[in-house]
């Protein structure tokens, strides 16, 4: 069981994590703005996550923490 948490207010909505996710379960939430005014990344299907940490590796802003 993997757990991915986002420091949402640090996210700049660049979408590099969305692009790199092998399971395609990340997206930018276009209905929400964070403190900086960006659309933050979020997880759509926590159960499908394999904790590969590709998203966290690509994230330039250390938004993502991955636990397993």
């Amino acid at each position, binding site marked *: 069981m993997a757990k991915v948490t986002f420091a949402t207010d640090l996210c700049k*909505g660049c*979408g*590099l994590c969305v*692009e790199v996710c092998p399971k395609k379960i990340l997206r930018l939430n276009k209905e929400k703005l964070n403190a900086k005014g960006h659309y933050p990344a979020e997880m759509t299907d926590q159960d499908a996550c394999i904790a590969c*940490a590709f998203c*966290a*590796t690509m994230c*330039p802003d250390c938004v993502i923490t991955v636990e397993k």
Partner: protein
Amino acid sequence: MAIVFEKPKALANVPLHYCPGCTHGIIHRLVAEAIDALGIEGTTVGVAPVGCSVMAYNYFNCDMVEAAHGRAPAVATGLKRAMPENIIFTYQGDGDLASIGMAETVHAATRNENITVIFVNNAIYGMTGGQMAPTSLPGQVTQTSPYGRDVKHCGWPVKVCEMLAQLEGPEYLERVAVNNVKNIRNAKRAIQKAFENQINNKGFSLIEVISSCPTNWGMTPQKALQWIDDNMIPYYPLGVYKDRSAEQEKA
């Protein structure tokens, strides 16, 4: 639950000022991970450059010094000679290291100063608004080369690793990229090796990191990473350009 990935301890808990999708953040993290892995946060002193990463002193938890434009290797030389037990690294962009700071870089390398240099090459001047840099590719469109870099008029790009590899001085030169997960893992290994070389008193290590500048290249962050694969890596091939210890072992 075991932690698979978290922010390294050597990276300060503040938001970075870089543009969305700029890979400076990844390179900051890799440096911080190397500092964590080697347990040297308390003895490390970083030297920040002028350029986009001018405020790098806010982002690392180790001590930091701000150098005048291009003079980071000279400042690092002074720090290392005054405090040889400390670990000194510089973090410089291509406008800083390959343009105004070229003399300091070449001479620090040829003296084999025992410092670690992290050289971020994004082929453009980022902070000042996207002017042509010494590392801009032939034909690359920038603010000051709107019809593409004309090598007849502006000369050819500087290939720093290839050039420094001609010197007897430097210990370790490697070019890496941070445009995909595989390259990032390789860059992490290279940066850690550059710090290990300094701990083992081997001498000057320079890691050139091919980075992206989505804002000034005028691309999305995703396209910018693809552009690195399509244009930058063919011109700036990745790999180890000099590893004196390995060469001596072989001989």
